[in-house]
């Protein structure tokens, strides 16, 4: 009996261990070794921090690095601001079939690939696109308007891509808030803003933090949206990694960049958790 239980435990654990070791631990060890290697001659390598020094020595790399972080935080904040009322409506105001229908509507865009979705935005925003034509037709704009290839267009794309990942955890936590608790807040003299501040947001904090972490990670690691919707100045850090690996064939520097991105996201998530007084166990459990 006991042997059976142990066998079952091992069988259940195996996929997780395989996944962790093959897809996460081994590649990262390899990347770490790769990033600490300097090419000194043809097929000659030495262990040195040269790649990291290159990163810190080049203003473009550092600026792109910081810009990516700030823009990702901004995208997360905007996504939260839009998703919160949407989630509140779905979780607390809509009832029955309307509720499930609205939830499904949030999911529908994810049935097509991210590439196609981004093209959708290009069709809307480009110079000869729907919005530009509409503005000209209405006489608001005299000539074609180009709305693509800037930070705003990129931000729209990032927020749109991340919306579902914010809505799902928020709806789940808000649904677990008893309506009577909100009513009690009003009954005891609370107004809309104070009930939101003192009751709804504290209750929803784990959902807000979980959603924000996911959206932030997705934005930080996004490659497609900044590439397609962003302009010449909207360089994203993932594009730097891509160009080092694929264009320049400098895997050592690419690996160092990858590690910097990992460190960056870990530090920001840790700081956010500290700032909101949350722990990862509380948020994910």
């Amino acid at each position: 009996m006991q042997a059976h239980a142990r066998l079952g435990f091992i069988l259940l654990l195996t996929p997780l261990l395989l996944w962790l070791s093959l897809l996460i631990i081994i590649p990262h060890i390899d990347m770490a070794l790769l990033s600490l290697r300097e090419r000194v001659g043809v097929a000659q390598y030495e262990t040195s921090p040269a790649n990291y020094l290159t990163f810190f020595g080049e203003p473009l790399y550092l600026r792109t690095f910081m810009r990516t972080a700030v823009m990702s935080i901004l995208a997360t904040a905007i996504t939260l601001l839009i998703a919160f009322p949407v989630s509140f409506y779905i979780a607390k105001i809509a009832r029955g079939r309307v509720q499930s229908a609205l939830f499904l509507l949030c999911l529908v865009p994810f049935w097509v690939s991210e590439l196609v979705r981004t093209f959708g935005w290009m069709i809307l925003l480009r110079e000869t696109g729907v919005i530009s034509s509409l503005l000209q037709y209405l006489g608001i704009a005299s000539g074609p308007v180009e709305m693509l290839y800037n930070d705003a267009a990129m931000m729209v794309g990032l927020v749109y891509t991340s919306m579902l990942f914010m809505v799902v955890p928020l709806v789940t936590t808000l649904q677990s808030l008893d309506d009577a608790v909100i009513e009690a807040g009003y009954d005891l003299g609370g107004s809309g803003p104070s009930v939101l501040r003192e009751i709804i947001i504290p209750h929803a904090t784990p959902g807000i933090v979980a959603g924000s972490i996911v959206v932030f990670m997705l934005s930080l690691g996004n490659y497609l949206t900044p590439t397609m919707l962003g302009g010449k100045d909207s360089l994203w850090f993932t594009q730097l990694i891509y160009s080092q690996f694929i264009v320049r064939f400098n895997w050592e520097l690419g690996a160092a960049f990858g590690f910097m991105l990992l460190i960056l996201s870990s530090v920001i998530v840790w700081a956010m958790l500290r700032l909101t007084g949350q722990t990862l166990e509380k948020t994910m459990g």
Partner: protein
Amino acid sequence: MTPDLECDALTKRFGAALAVDDVSFSVPPGSFFSILGPSGCGKTTIMRMIAGFLAPSGGDIRIKGRSVLDVPPNKRPVNMVFQHLALFPMMNIADNIGYGLRRKGLPRAEITRKVGEVLERIGLPDIATRKVEELSGGQKQRVAIARCMVLEPDVLLLDEPLGALDLKLREHMKIELKALQAAFDTTFVYITHDQSEALVMSDQIAVMNAGRFEQVGTAQELYYRPETAFVAGFVGDSNRWSGRVETASGGTLGLRTEGGLLMQATAHGRPLATGDRAEIYVRPEAIRLARQDADLAQFDNRLSGRVTSLLFNGAASRILVQSDQGGPEIEVTLPQSGEFADLGRGDAVHIGWSGAQSNCFARTGAA
């Protein structure tokens, strides 16, 4: 004296359904008023209208003589203890109780003082910094009441707050709630489907059924002199017979049940005439049990029969008696004074009750 709470022809429709149908009542200051009714009778709807979460379809609600219909819930001088208490889990006890005071914009020192006072009053002075989930059911209950009472409302609404407690604690909290009401000297409006809660605690009880008040009165009035068949059936237990009035003279009725039993009953001023179809209600505890018929000489209704079942439930034990004259089994309270301790199934017994103890109602419709 102006009543603390007055409802005047209060009506609420949900689409075509009439949830509350033309209900009027007034609650004098400092009293404990209960609305007792089965689930779905509209009592929660009344409470939510008083609290301000629902707008009435018609009628008026006045608190201390002033109509509150256009006052939003956060400005009404009423507070509510919710069914599942709805304490704020994200705050500690002191913050829970201080929430309403903070909303009023009181200075911090005064909030601390008032919270301390009210905690003292509910007998839990040391729990200010505890978390909600660390409290027991009874403590949460008291905190929920304190959270409202600290705001000194004109009326405190309680929506079946004892429903979630276990039996022993519920019995204890009944007494405690009544004591708290006396201590705070505030008007309590309590809704429940549990008649024992209403009977034990209330000064006045309204029995509600299908959106209407069937009767408003003290516990004794409801129990001894129900005005309608619904009240007689809902408050306390009753043996019930259907029958027809055979004789009616000077307030005394002679009735024959469908099973053929002949019974005497007092009309208690109810309009019943010869030939009327009637419902007869007799409480199990109003029926005297005896071994000899001679012991029951003083009663105008006497039957002999056999015990078919013993329903032992401690002090509330009963027996079922099958009368020799036929008809349905009759529930009789089993006295616990010892003389019937050896009573067993199949034993012959005599039962009797006074006609004045029974309640008869004219039978309406098909019911």
